[in-house]
């Protein structure tokens, strides 16, 4: 029996729990058991979008320790843009130096050590939509989370990187050609791009600048991947999430997968680089499976379609022509081997462990 790696299915239709996290103090608008559609607003909250600091002591010409005597608005006060927040009367009260607020927001602190007033921008209202069609299965009011069970299509790649992000799926190019810089266009903004055999760091940076949310492609050179991953590995986030379906290098995306994904063009989806998964909410009638295939090996036979894992022809596919037991390779290793007919007709003898069954 000739045993080697067997590729696990790259996609499956299953049921997922999708958790939506709302800002602190949000109002939750659904209850457990509610049926929701993707556009349903599950909660409304407010989210601060940043802060500004003003060196008020310097502007007033007073010592930082004296600033509190001159402020006109205390921490917690709402202020409009150009409202006076501190003043200093000079020359017997005839001239007044003033500090005005540069933003509409809330004063959060007055630092007497450095003489700085810090203000938060007025929080913006945020409406959180369900994003999926399903049923609300859990609500955690203390954590402000709403969880929904939904039918999904789940893609699992070999390597990934980055946080959880969301966006509409957009298929690009060909599965066996690298994604080029010329292909990248403004319409990719906020999308999750699927396609190509390779993405380089240069193209990726272009995508980040365009606010592309995620890339699902065949491969990426290890050097590029490692430079992005840094010390946190796949949990590092560079502003985009990546899934490499095949691994490192220029590796064609499966044609079958690429063709299958066309029906999901434009669909809202979630990408999670750290777990190598793309999750696409899917309301179709396709039967769902909960079972995960974890058997990573299979039996080779003549005619089996395989992917080569050798240095010279890495990622290429071929068909098994013959199998041989206990062959002594010129490099000093005795092992079972297979004669593989590559796509260009070349016959190559490789150890069976250097093959992956793809069908």
């Amino acid at each position, binding site marked *: 029996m000739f*045993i*080697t*790696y067997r590729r696990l299915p790259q996609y499956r239709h299953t049921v997922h729990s999708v958790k939506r996290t709302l800002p602190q103090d949000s109002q939750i608008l659904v209850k457990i058991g509610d049926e929701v559609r993707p556009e349903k607003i599950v909660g409304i909250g407010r989210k601060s979008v940043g802060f500004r600091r003003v060196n008020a002591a310097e502007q007033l010409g007073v010592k930082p320790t004296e600033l509190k005597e001159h402020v006109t608005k205390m921490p917690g006060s709402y202020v409009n843009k150009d409202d006076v927040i501190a003043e200093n009367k000079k020359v017997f009260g005839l001239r007044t130096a003033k500090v005005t607020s540069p933003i509409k927001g809330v004063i959060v602190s007055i630092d007497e050590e450095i003489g700085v007033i810090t203000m938060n921008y007025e929080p913006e209202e945020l409406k959180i939509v369900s994003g999926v069609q399903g049923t609300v299965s859990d609500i955690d009011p203390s954590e402000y989370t709403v969880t929904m069970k939904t039918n999904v299509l789940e893609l699992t790649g*070999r*390597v990934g990187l980055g946080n959880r992000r969301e966006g509409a799926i957009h298929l690009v190019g060909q599965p066996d050609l690298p994604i080029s810089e010329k292909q990248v266009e403004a319409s990719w903004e906020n999308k999750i791009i699927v396609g190509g055999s390779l993405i380089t760091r240069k193209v990726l940076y272009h995508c980040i600048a365009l606010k592309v949310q995620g890339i699902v492609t065949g*491969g990426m*050179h*290890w*050097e590029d*991947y*490692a*430079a992005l991953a840094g010390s946190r*590995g796949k949990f590092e986030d560079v502003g985009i999430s990546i899934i490499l379906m095949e*691994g*490192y*290098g220029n590796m064609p995306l499966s044609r079958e997968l690429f063709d299958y994904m066309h029906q999901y063009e434009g669909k809202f989806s979630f990408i999670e680089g750290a777990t190598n998964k793309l999750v696409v909410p899917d309301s179709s009638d396709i039967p769902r499976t909960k079972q995960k295939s974890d058997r*990573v*090996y299979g039996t080779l036979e003549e005619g089996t379609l395989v992917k080569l*894992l*050798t*240095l*010279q022809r*890495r990622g290429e596919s071929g068909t098994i022509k013959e199998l041989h037991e206990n062959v*002594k*390779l*010129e*490099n*000093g*290793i*005795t*092992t079972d081997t297979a004669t593989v007919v590559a796509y260009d007709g070349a016959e190559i003898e*490789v*150890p069976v*462990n*250097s093959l*992956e069954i793809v069908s």
Partner: protein
Amino acid sequence: METQTAAAQTYIVTVFADTVYRAFLFITLHDNLELVDAMTAPGFIEQELFTESVRTRWYKPGAKELTVTNRKIFNLESIKDVFPEQKAIVVDIGTKSSSIVSYKEGLFSIKEEDAGIAKGLLSVLDVPIIRHTFGDILPFDDDKAAVLDYLAEKELYPERYPSTMRERVIDIFAARTLIHLFAQKNPRLFSITRSLDKKLAKHEMGTSSTGIAILTGEAYLDHFSHPLKNATAALTAFSFLDGASLRGVWHVYQDGEGILSTLGRLRKEKVVIDSLTRFITQLGTVINLDHSVEDGKELGVLRFDLGYQLPQEVHIRAGDIVRLPFNSEHTGTVTMELLKDVSIFGVTDSHMAENVEVLGGAAGIIVDARKRTESMSIATQPQLKHWLQDIGLGDI
């Protein structure tokens, strides 16, 4: 009075390593241990499946079934009685983890690294270092990105075997990098003496101190005699001497079958193992000269007495790595006439006049005459290319 007929005892020893399972069938008769057969399977199948196929093939009533799940413990068991007087180390470079076991005068030390030639190799080094190590120092002019992709992919397919000599060389160079990491973290493990200072080492080393090193693990698999055996043996020895920045004189062995830990397991069962070298390959001797002489200048003469009518004289130049292809039948001594500032770990030729025992082997006798600083760096690409050319792997 009844006469007792010694019965043969059968042992089946199974080794469950992280990416490969092996089983060995041994028979002992009158304290003679013989290896009868061996089996191997990739580590991704279920252990029970492998055990079952081993039993189906070999088991007979009375056979003792033993397992090894922790190679380093039994690697230590293998060497501690065989080389009690000498500094002996086992360098086990696996696919997902590696270990160094050292034993000398009743003291042992075990160090592990959660990295092997597949898993963790690239992640333990940052990108600039790995570029240097595999890009600039690998002895090929290949597309560097492709080689790094191939290496990184080994983490996804750790059971993958090298299919060509070039892939094999990459594995051995990966092992060299791991040994280099070990040596940087634990320089004492690779020192024959307790002191790392060559002035102090001189007094400790004496005239006949040699180290014993056994290289094992998936990085060093080599199952049989083949036309390039001597070349791969030389490369294996080189990965050790270069990675570890060795000092002193070392006798080096290769466990290409992955059998060493099973012999340690059998020793636990009180099985007599008269000689490890029956089961492992003698690679030869590595002699490392200490000096700071400029490259190209002659350092002196080494005279090997290996049983020929006349001693074999070798003139050594600074910067060279010289390999003398004496096979394992050649055993003898070496005497030296070296420049004043040239030593073997602090010991000069006058002290070394008689008793430095040297062994030939599959790699031969290797003299490393590269300039040595306190932290010696590993070989550069031109040196490696030259070395590969020398051992007949220049065209792979």
